Structures are given as structure tokens and as C-alpha cells.
């Protein structure tokens, strides 16, 4: 987009009204679609650039709304977005979960034309959003218990099916504790039955709501309140791990994806993709927690990005049990770079550097890179890196 027709900023564009050049997109239930702001006039250039313009943001990372055609802009850029999780809630500054949930739910709401019900497990997201008598939810929302959100969502879906209200879609959401630990049985049952529910796990790798205790998703070596940085092997043990996206894939459900808050546009796209399908779908989103991880509030996205760029957090999509796409690492970093910024891993560097632990974590990242073909040179035999396809 040329500078002579620079898009107005978000606030300014509230004044923008529909023109013939505008493509209105967004929820059809919005009555005054002309007063719509993800809608910036699309200008047809008379003199295209000599070489195709390739914006940095178009690759893997950025929202970059102002530089994108309307159809590719994020749901969040739309002032008529639903604000499913609206402002005023009590999440901590820099909360990855609040950010992820807002993007995910608004994308789901758009995909469902507003006909959405959200079921929430107990956890940070539930507590910070609904302190009596307030609620931040502008979507029909139900919280029952910590360990039963998938089953409650199955019940909601069954109800609408029985009542002939197939247009109403159901999203369930929970943290990693509610998903990989206490709610695991219900989640597996929901997958196995292929109930028509999109389950989104916001993974901050511990029980943050109750004071940072270890969960089944806590990475090895991480310090939590129940895996303290003391003794001969400080921090969490090296277990076998509990890779829920792969466990979900083993159920051969229609859709499984991972995402992070470092690439929110990608998260929106995955939610949108998931919402285009029926049956059990699962999205596992990394949401750094400044409080639990010991990071600055302003670094939430940076930390999430380092997780993906180190290979510790593979970002991929799978359909019916098979990986169909993965997001290539753009600039690989050693895991050390990811670990160093977080106080929960401080004992790996102080008072003595624990190379053997860092090496084991690097080996995990390397395995992810091989498994998902995250680097061109590490392309797996069955899964060509997506980067090549995209750049072709």
C-alpha cells in the first residue's frame, strides 16, 4: 500500500464509511456494516511497483494490518469485532492468556456469526474475567468446574443438536492444568466421541491462578512453587512429557493446531480454520505468564517468539491425525536465549551454569525441529517445510 494512500490509524478509521471500493467483511449480524473498521478503502494502484512488494509482516510474525489487504487483516483490527472478552477484567499486566483468549474468541465469534457459546474451565481466565458481580464476557459463557469443561461443552453441543440449533457453535477453553491434568479424561472422551466442540488450551505451563504450581505441562527444569529451585536437581524433573497436541492427534480428530501469542494472526487463522470444520477440534496456545515465568510484562510476545524460534514450541496444524502444515523457524535461536530471559530457569545459569540441563532442553528443541520440519535443512522425509511451498 503506497504512502500516498496511507491507511488511517485504528482510531481515525472509525470515521471511515463504506465506499464502493471497500470490501465489507466481518460478522453479518452487524446491522450497520458500512460503519465498519477493519474496512479501510482498498486502493487499486495504477502503477504497481516494479518488483512485487513483499512486506516483512506477511511471513510468519506480524499482525501488520495496515499493510495487508482487507481480507487478510486480523479480526482484532475490526472495531466492530465482538469483544468477546472485553476490557476491565483483572488479568495481570502482560497476561498471555487474556491476549490469546481475546483473539481466539473474537475469531470464533466472527466465524460463527455471533452464534457462539463458550464453556470455561476453572482457572486464571475464569477467575479474572468473572469476579462477582462483573463479567468481561460478551459471549454466552458457562463455567462449571475445573476438570469438566470438555464434558460440559459436549453437553452444550448435544443440547443444541437435540434442539435443532446446529448454527450455535461451542468453544471450550481452559488452562494447561484444566486441560492436560484434571480435565484430561473428559477431554479424551470428547475427542473420542468427536463431539462438535472446539477446545482451546491456553498453556502457561503451570497452575498460575493458585500461585505457580507444577502441572503436567510444566517443562523440565522449570521452577514452580512445587518444583523449587533447590537441591541437587533444582526445578521440575525431566519426565516423559505430556504432549497434548500429539495425544489429541492420536485421537485422529478433524483438527489439531498449536499456536502462540507471538503470532496472533496465525492464532486467528487457526481458530477460523477450526471453526470451518465440525467435530472435535483442538488448539493448544502458548501463553507466557509474566508472574509465573518471571518475565517482564512487556516481554510476553518476545518470550513466546523465542519459544517458537528455538524449536521448543513447534507451531503446526494437523488434520485427522496427520501434520499438514508447520510454521518454519525464521531465525533460529539456541534454547539458552529463550531460557535466559525467564526467572523460572535462572538456576540453570546461576550460581553455576548447568550445561547438561541446557543441552537436554536443546535436544528437545532439536527433536521438534526434526519432527515438524521447522528448518529447511532438517526437513522431514514426509513433511516438506511449509516455507518452501509458501515461497514457491
Amino acid at each position, binding site marked *: 500500500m503506497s504512502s500516498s494512500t496511507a491507511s488511517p490509524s485504528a482510531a481515525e478509521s472509525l470515521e471511515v464509511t463504506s465506499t464502493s471500493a471497500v470490501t465489507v467483511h466481518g460478522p453479518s449480524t452487524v446491522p450497520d456494516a458500512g460503519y465498519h473498521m477493519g474496512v479501510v478503502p482498498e486502493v487499486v494502484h495504477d502503477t504497481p511497483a516494479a518488483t512485487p512488494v513483499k512486506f516483512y509482516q506477511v511471513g510468519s510474525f506480524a499482525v501488520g494490518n495496515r499493510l495487508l489487504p482487507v481480507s487478510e487483516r486480523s479480526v482484532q483490527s475490526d472495531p466492530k469485532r465482538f469483544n468477546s472478552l472485553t476490557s476491565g477484567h483483572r488479568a495481570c499486566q502482560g497476561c498471555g492468556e487474556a491476549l490469546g483468549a481475546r483473539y481466539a474468541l473474537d475469531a470464533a465469534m466472527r466465524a*460463527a456469526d*455471533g*452464534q*457462539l*457459546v463458550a*464453556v*470455561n474451565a476453572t482457572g486464571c481466565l*475464569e*477467575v479474572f474475567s*468473572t*469476579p*462477582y*458481580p462483573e*463479567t468481561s*464476557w*460478551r*459471549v*454466552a*459463557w*458457562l*463455567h*462449571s*468446574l475445573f*476438570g*469438566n469443561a470438555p*464434558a*460440559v*461443552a*459436549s*453437553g*452444550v*453441543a*448435544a*443440547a*443444541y*443438536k*437435540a*434442539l*435443532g440449533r446446529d448454527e*450455535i457453535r461451542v468453544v471450550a477453553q481452559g488452562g494447561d492444568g484444566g486441560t492436560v491434568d484434571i480435565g484430561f*479424561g*473428559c477431554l*479424551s*472422551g470428547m475427542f*473420542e*466421541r468427536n*463431539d462438535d466442540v472446539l477446545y482451546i488450551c491456553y498453556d502457561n505451563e503451570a497452575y498460575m491462578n493458585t500461585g505457580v504450581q507444577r502441572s503436567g505441562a510444566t517443562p523440565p527444569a522449570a521452577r514452580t512453587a512445587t518444583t523449587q529451585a533447590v537441591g541437587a536437581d533444582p526445578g521440575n524433573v525431566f519426565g516423559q512429557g505430556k504432549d497434548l497436541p500429539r495425544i489429541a492427534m492420536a485421537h485422529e480428530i478433524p483438527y489439531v493446531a498449536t499456536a502462540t501469542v507471538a503470532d496472533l494472526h496465525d492464532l486467528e487463522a487457526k481458530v477460523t480454520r477450526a471453526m470451518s470444520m465440525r467435530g472435535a477440534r483442538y488448539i493448544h496456545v502458548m501463553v507466557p505468564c509474566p508472574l509465573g515465568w518471571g518475565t517482564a510484562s512487556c516481554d510476553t510476545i518476545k518470550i513466546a517468539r523465542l519459544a517458537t524460534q528455538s524449536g521448543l514450541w513447534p507451531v503446526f496444524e494437523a488434520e485427522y491425525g496427520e501434520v499438514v502444515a508447520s510454521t518454519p523457524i525464521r531465525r533460529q535461536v539456541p534454547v539458552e536465549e529463550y531460557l535466559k530471559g525467564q526467572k523460572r530457569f535462572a538456576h540453570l545459569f546461576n550460581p553455576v551454569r548447568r550445561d547438561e540441563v541446557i543441552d537436554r532442553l536443546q535436544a528437545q528443541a532439536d527433536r521438534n525441529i526434526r519432527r515438524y520440519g521447522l528448518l529447511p535443512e532438517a526437513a522431514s522425509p514426509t513433511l516438506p517445510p511449509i516455507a518452501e511451498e509458501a515461497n514457491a
Partner: protein
Amino acid sequence: MLTQLEGSMAVARAVAACRPHVICAYPISPQTHIVEGLSAIVKSGELPGCEYVNVESEFAAMSVAIGASAAGARSYTATASQGLLFMVEAVYNASGLGLPIVMTVANRAIGAPINIWNDHTDAMSQRDSGWIQLYAETNQEAADLHVQAFKIAEELSLPVMVCMDGFILTHAVEQVDVPEVDQVAQFLPPFEPRQVLDPDHPVSIGAMVGPEAFTEVRYLAHERQMQALDVIPRVAEEFRAVFDRDSGGLVRGYRLEDAETVVIALGSVLGTIKDVIDERRERGEKIGALGITSFRPFPLDAVREALGTAKRFVCLEKAFSVGIGGIVASHVRMAMSASPIANYTIVAGLGGRPILKSSLHAAFDQAVADELPALTFLDLDHGLVDRELARTRAGRRSGPAAENILRDLGAVRAGSR
């Protein structure tokens, strides 16, 4: 129409006649034929507009019912025993959220020791769960109570547990006048939820409530159960008007006129008790029985009124509170607190032990003479108990009590000691 069928099947057909939208159940731990019957009814296409969800646990069963009910669906599940305990967190949640779910509890014992047979320990453990609890005396009443339960639940926005004795009722084949769809349609209006997940009118359900309002929310749960004291008898009357038979209500007396001794019980054992009372009445004894249909809410006034001028009451209970004794008896004593009378608790039928008329006669003989201990375990084998107590006194490592007792009985031969 009178049909000869198993109690579970009668209940299955009665529930189906209520046109539920969502039925969810876990097959064991343990389950009854009710959900098998309903599964067949739904699968055959006989019940259009109903989803049957086979879940992976009792906890999920109640959770599915919670989600379905909150979405505006008439929801039903069934369980018993360990399964009820496994779903307890969700049981409390359903009542706390005010969701009118109906659940059958086919009463059975709770382990350890593991035991699959009938008593009331399971349902009694949930007496404080906030659910309405109705106890069926017969299979006819079990079928009828389910139809009434949906009406009561939906009117009050409270869940209702229909308790029927496992095996004694659920597996007994006898004649039942199964409520028919057209009759039920006259009696039970369509489900109109007080609160519902509606994308067009979004609300948050299940918010966190702190000290500033928790007491009020809990008080309202109590208040609604107090309202149920009026609703339950009224619904029984409305049921009678359509179906032309007596079922439900708060309490039901038997030969209470001029009774000096009143035997109080819940569930199917009332049949045996009535036979015993008939025999004793023939001998001129002033004795009657009081069946409590609604244990939650507990009808203090109705019980007091029914006891009238009785000199004593005997509570025959299929469960007890370990460390204190009778559960029902403590409730009845509360009802009679203004003018206390002599009272006795007989714990009977635990883990499926038959309650024999001869045993009841012997116990009632003592009761009417005011010679019965305050707490009696009917047909307790004191010899077995004493041998185990002696073992525990004799040495530290006395071993597992249940297995010791079985070995003493000669039921287990391969003991190591």
C-alpha cells in the same frame, strides 16, 4: 396400561415419555438397565430430538447434563453407588447453578469393602448436595416419581434425584402402569429454563462469588428447597388428576390412626414393614408406618403431623452416619424437638442384607417395650465382630478386617494367616 416389566425398564419408559433432549450415562460403577433401555429407545428412533451421549465417566455424565441443561435442554442421567461419589463435585455444581437435571440413583452400598448390593449409603452421602431427593417405595412409584421430578425440577430450577432401591426395585419384574407419552404431555409442560445459554442474549453463568454475596446465594438454594415443600405435594395432586393414582408427595402414612409406635423408613423396605405392621395390628398392637418420600427437602411439619400422638418412633435406616448413628432419626428428632418422644434407630439392610420379617418383629417387640437400644444394627453377627476385635487387640498386624471376617465365615479359604 399395566405391563409386566423390570423396574429399570419402567423407569426408562417413563423418562422417555418425558421427552428429554439429552441423556448421558456411564455404563458401570455401577449402572442399571435404565440407561440401556433408554439407549435402545433413542437409537431406534422412537425418541426424536434426543441425544444420547455415552460418556467416559460418571463425572463426565453429570458434566454433560450440566452443559445440556444450561443450554436449555431437558437433561437426564442415572447412576448409583461409587458412580454417584465419582460425580459428586459436579452433583454439587449442578444444584449450585440451579440446573433442573433429573437423575436416578439406584441405591447401592459404598465401598470399601466393595459391594454391589442395595442400601442407601450412596444417596444419603448427597443429602447436603442441594438436590431434591425423592425415594420410591415401589416400581410404580419409581416410574411416576420421574415424571413428577421433571416438573418439580423445572418449576424450581433445582435438580432432583429419584432414589430407588438397587436390585430390589431396579431388577424386580412386576406390573407397572407405565406413564404414557400423551398423559405426560398433559401433565408436564415444555421446559422453559430460567437461565439459558443464548447467543442472542448472552449471559455469564458460573461466575465467582465472594463473601459479599455467597451467603445470599446459598440461602436462596435453601429457600427454593423450602418452596419445594409446597411444590412437591401440589405436583403429586396434579399427577393424580391426570394419572388417577397416588404417587409422590412428602410423606405417606400407613395405619397411623391411634398408633403409639410409628416405624419410619424410606424406599422399598416399607413393603416388608407394612406386612409386619399388619401382623402386629392383628394382635391388637397400635403400630403404624410412615414412609418419607421427600428426604430433601425434609418435611419437618409433615412428619410431626404424621406422628401425631405417637409415644415412640423407630427409624429403620439403610445407611448410617459412622460415628453417630441414624441419619433419618436425627431428622425426625428435630421434627419432634418441641415435644420429644422415645425413639430408636435400627440400621438394617446394609450391603444388601435381607431385612427379614422375623428380625423386624423381634426388634419391634423390644421397641414397644422401650427395651431396644437407641442404636441397633439388625442381625449383626456379634461373634464375627468380637473375633475381629480380639484379633486387633492381640497384635499390631491384625491384617485386613474384611478379609479376616470373610475367612472366619469360611467364605475365603486361601488366607495367609
